[in-house]
């Protein structure tokens, strides 16, 4: 076990250094995401102003502001390149360089990506969290920060990252069968954005649709952790949403293993 950890720790470290290599990339990304949040904030503000009583489906203006910034933060924290990095390796055949090493393909990708994200995570997570709490303090007049919700939020985000990773990996494996997955990747992107509550909180959908959406794996990606932080769940609901996250994670890990096994069978030689 210890040896196993050491093996993947080295991938993690390599990832961290690799992540540091492209700093400007990150700064541009951060500016872009911030602009997006601000636009979303003003759109929702307009919605709430026109609704009259300042309360909409159990959300008030403070809630929705929190939701916009948090859901974007969660979406960012759990964003993963596993689809494209795997698909690219499959397409150009460099996956064979991974196969000649005594490592688990999925875990090595995961460890490297985690390392790659360490810097950007710290650079966004802390300022956004502080910003959100300052906003809440100013508008509400008291400190609304809840340490238990915060810790549960962290756990939930870790689960949703892992679910996102394996879900995306699954799309990456499609490259074995399709060779070019650009179209699928676009489709996946839109599906996740819509069903995960990254654009519109799932709570805003009509009851029947909402119930269905909440059971889908996508809800576990953004909606669940955000709502956990906002303290919108009762204790029983909390148990239920965490159970859902774990179940989906296990399901995706198993499917990934199966697909990898099948893919190896039909691997054809790329480039000579």
């Amino acid at each position, binding site marked *: 076990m210890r040896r196993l950890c050491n093996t993947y720790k*080295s991938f993690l470290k390599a990832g961290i250094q690799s992540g540091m290599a492209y700093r400007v990339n990150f700064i541009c990304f951060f500016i872009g995401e911030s602009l997006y949040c601000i636009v979303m904030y003003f759109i929702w503000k307009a919605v709430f102003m026109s609704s009259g009583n300042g309360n909409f489906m159990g959300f008030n203006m403070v809630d929705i502001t929190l939701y916009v910034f948090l859901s974007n933060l969660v979406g960012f924290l759990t964003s993963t390149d596993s689809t494209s990095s795997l698909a690219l390796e499959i397409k150009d055949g460099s996956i*064979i360089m991974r196969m000649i090493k005594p490592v688990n393909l999925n875990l090595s990708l995961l460890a490297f990506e985690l390392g790659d994200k360490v810097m950007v995570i710290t650079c966004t997570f802390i300022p956004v969290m502080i910003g959100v709490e300052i906003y809440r303090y100013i508008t509400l007049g008291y400190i609304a920060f809840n340490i238990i919700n915060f810790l549960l939020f962290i756990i939930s985000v870790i689960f949703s990252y892992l679910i996102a990773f394996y879900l995306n990996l699954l799309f990456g494996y499609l490259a074995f069968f399709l060779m070019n997955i650009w179209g699928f990747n676009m489709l996946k992107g839109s599906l996740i954005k819509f069903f995960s509550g990254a654009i519109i909180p799932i709570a805003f959908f009509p009851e029947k649709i909402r119930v269905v959406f909440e059971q889908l794996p996508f809800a576990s990606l953004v909606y669940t952790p955000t709502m956990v932080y906002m303290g919108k769940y009762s204790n029983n609901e909390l148990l239920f949403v965490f159970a859902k996250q774990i179940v989906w994670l296990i399901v995706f890990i198993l499917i990934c293993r199966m697909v990898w096994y099948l893919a190896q069978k039909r691997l054809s*030689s790329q480039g000579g």
Partner: protein
Amino acid sequence: MIKVQNVSKEFKKVVKESGLKGSVKSLFSRKYDIVKAVNDISFTVAKGEILGFIGANGAGKSTTIKMLTGILTPTKGEIEINGQIPYKNRKKYVREIGVVFGQRTQLWWDLPLTETFTVLKEIYQVDDARFKKQMDFFNEVLELKDFVKSPVRTLSLGQRMRADLAASMLHSPKVLFLDEPTIGLDVVVKSNIREAITKINQEEQTTIILTTHDLKDIETLCKRIIMIDKGTLIYDGSLLDMKNKFGKFREINLSLQNNSDINMLRFKEDLNLNSDDFQIKSNKEKITVIFNSQKIGVSDMLSYILTHTNIADISVNDVNIEEIVRRMYK
């Protein structure tokens, strides 16, 4: 050490009809062709042997290597290496082998070279003392010192290849697979790499299987060669035997005082040689005559040339294997 028995590999290939119409058509119904990349190959390799694989592009060399390294599963036949079956339990098997694909790299693109070695050290669980010893050895034979701190993406192709070779050797594998290890390198680096391969082979008794298009590699490294053409094995034996078997060709290089003298050499008419048995290549400075020494002796050939032309310089050589290979493909 390595046993390969009746191994074949087939690929399904989509047949696309030409043009836009064909492309649209293939969206709905696809035709497949079965391509036999490797067809019923058998051979064995002993411990410490260096085996050279040669063959034209697309002959099936790389596919064979990929099957040997456990990346591809053979359609038919059996492979056993170090008592293990490569494509079963891949993770365990690859611990004992090293692989270099000349056209790819196993180094971390964005990181300094040392980092790759650190990662590999962890992956293969090489202990510190062993690691240091190996690195010293690599520094000596591959001269990594100069660029070990630079990011891999800034390395030249020659440096990268040397580093790749070192990376594949860090865990002292029992078998080393080198797929075109000298591709695209200049003469100096090539000979550098060859020397390193020889040293590695001697020092650690590593079994080495290498494919190449550079026949100089074969001549300096391999005592035994396997030649593959269109997926089938067409020759397995020593380099010397091959030279004997496929025509005892000799090569005479000469330069003439008067270049027009070349027209005086009429092998066909004067010596009754078939056009298969000789060949004349010439450029401004040098004329090369290749001929079958079983049809006409070297001394006869020399005296014929000497009597018919005025020579500035002359030398007789063994024909290089490129020529043999070229003739075999025909």
